[in-house]
């Protein structure tokens, strides 16, 4: 090795000392990954579309396995808290009864849920309300009467499992509300009715949970016959009022649907009013008729479609219709007021209109009502 070569070697050694080996090793080290889920499906051949992206996304529902950081239920922590026994009982049942794709809101809310006791007496006296418990999606907090919580907590837990608060808007089951201008408070009656329906369906073995929101339960029970139980439960748990409207647009116009929903909201506020002027009673009667007529007409459209494509024969058509009509209230008594809501004229008119119509196709591409918030 001559002098020149020695110098070069020296240079190389100096350079080698200056290299950041740790960085190099980090760059070369294999990429570490955590697997959340792998299908057991057999995939022989596939084409990976790198340019694909779902468009106009409003909401993404993921199974809990994919959001493990937020979905692992801390049973011990929940059980140790006040009212924890009921919360754990609810959680165990929900996981058993509903598919994980519908439990994103439930998992996101459960671990940080706060359940606190509150006396509603003074609030009810001042506000002239009759509240026994409530859930705030903004604070993820349930308030219950500590002395009598078993009658209300399961209903409120369903609100928790179906609520998300985002950008100042509360999405809760079939209700959306906000203090922001331009966003209507819509769907309260459907939301309370269906929340109570689910409470009675899954916790009805506890006698004390039954008996509230009777009219709203009745209405949402009929609505579920039109939409289908699985679909309706999924839309509710994903807080997808728009999806519910979209489903109904297969059978009715958007204008009719919005009148129906706002009609139920009017009724939940005024049906139990004790002192009424004659014109107020007339408004309630009119709203009741519109709501019942909508349900009846929409259901007949659904049945007629099934009849037309041969999915039903005439006997089943009549049986289904009779089953649907039978529990519909002919009249409704609220306090000292009685309202006639389902008359033979309504039944005849609805049937005649639908069977005489040359084409039952409802234009599902009608513009979405501007009162519904699109940007979620």
């Amino acid at each position, binding site marked *: 090795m001559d002098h020149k070569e020695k110098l070069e070697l020296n240079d190389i050694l100096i350079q080698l000392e200056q290299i950041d080996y740790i960085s190099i090793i980090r760059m070369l080290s294999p990429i570490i990954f955590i697997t959340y889920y792998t299908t057991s499906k057999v995939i022989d051949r596939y084409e990976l579309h790198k340019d694909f992206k779902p468009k106009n996304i409003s909401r993404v529902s993921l199974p809990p396995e994919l959001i493990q950081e*937020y979905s692992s239920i801390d049973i011990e922590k929940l059980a140790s808290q006040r009212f924890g026994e009921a919360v754990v009982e609810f959680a165990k049942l929900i996981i058993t009864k509903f598919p994980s794709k519908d439990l994103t809101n439930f998992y996101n809310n459960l671990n940080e849920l706060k359940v606190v006791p509150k006396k509603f007496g003074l609030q009810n006296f001042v506000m002239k309300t009759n509240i026994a418990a409530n859930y705030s999606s903004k604070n993820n907090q349930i308030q219950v009467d500590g002395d009598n919580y078993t009658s209300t907590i399961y209903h409120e837990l369903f609100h928790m499992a179906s609520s998300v608060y985002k950008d100042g808007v509360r999405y809760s089951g079939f209700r959306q509300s906000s203090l922001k201008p331009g966003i209507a408070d819509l769907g309260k009656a459907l939301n309370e009715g269906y929340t109570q329906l689910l409470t009675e369906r899954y916790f009805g073995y506890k006698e004390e949970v039954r008996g509230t929101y009777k009219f709203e339960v009745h209405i949402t029970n009929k609505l579920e016959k039109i939409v289908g139980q699985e679909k309706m439960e999924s839309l509710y748990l994903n807080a997808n009022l728009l999806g519910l409207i979209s489903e109904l647009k297969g059978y009715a116009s958007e204008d009719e649907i919005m009148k129906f929903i706002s009609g139920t909201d009017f009724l939940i506020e005024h049906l139990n009013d004790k002192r009424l002027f004659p014109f107020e009673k007339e408004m309630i009667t009119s709203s009741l008729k519109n709501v019942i007529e909508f349900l009846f007409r929409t259901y007949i459209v659904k049945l007629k479609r099934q009849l037309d494509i041969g999915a039903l024969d005439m006997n089943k058509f009549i049986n289904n219709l009779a089953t649907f009509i039978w529990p519909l209230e002919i009249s409704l008594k609220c306090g000292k007021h009685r309202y006639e809501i389902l008359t033979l004229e309504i039944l005849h008119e609805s049937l005649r209109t639908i069977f005489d119509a040359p084409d039952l196709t409802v234009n599902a591409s009608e513009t979405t009502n501007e009162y519904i918030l699109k940007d979620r």
Partner: protein
Amino acid sequence: MNETKFLKVTDDFGKEITYEIICAFKLEKTGKNYVVYTDNTNDEAGNLNVFASIYYPQDNSKLDSIETEEEWQEVEKRLKEIQQ
């Protein structure tokens, strides 16, 4: 056998599209979560149409496109493992 898992995307008009999830994983290097999914359709050659996106456990309003080739290679590695 694993229970089949689904990714459900709701658009601005309330329309829901359900995809079957093939796999989901997190890369520690990027800190991102990836979901690989299919609509169970096939292309003309009979290949299963497969897609992949970045998802956010804390934000259920978006799926992002995968942008680097390195990340795509990881997706393909997972798919190859499933094929074997």
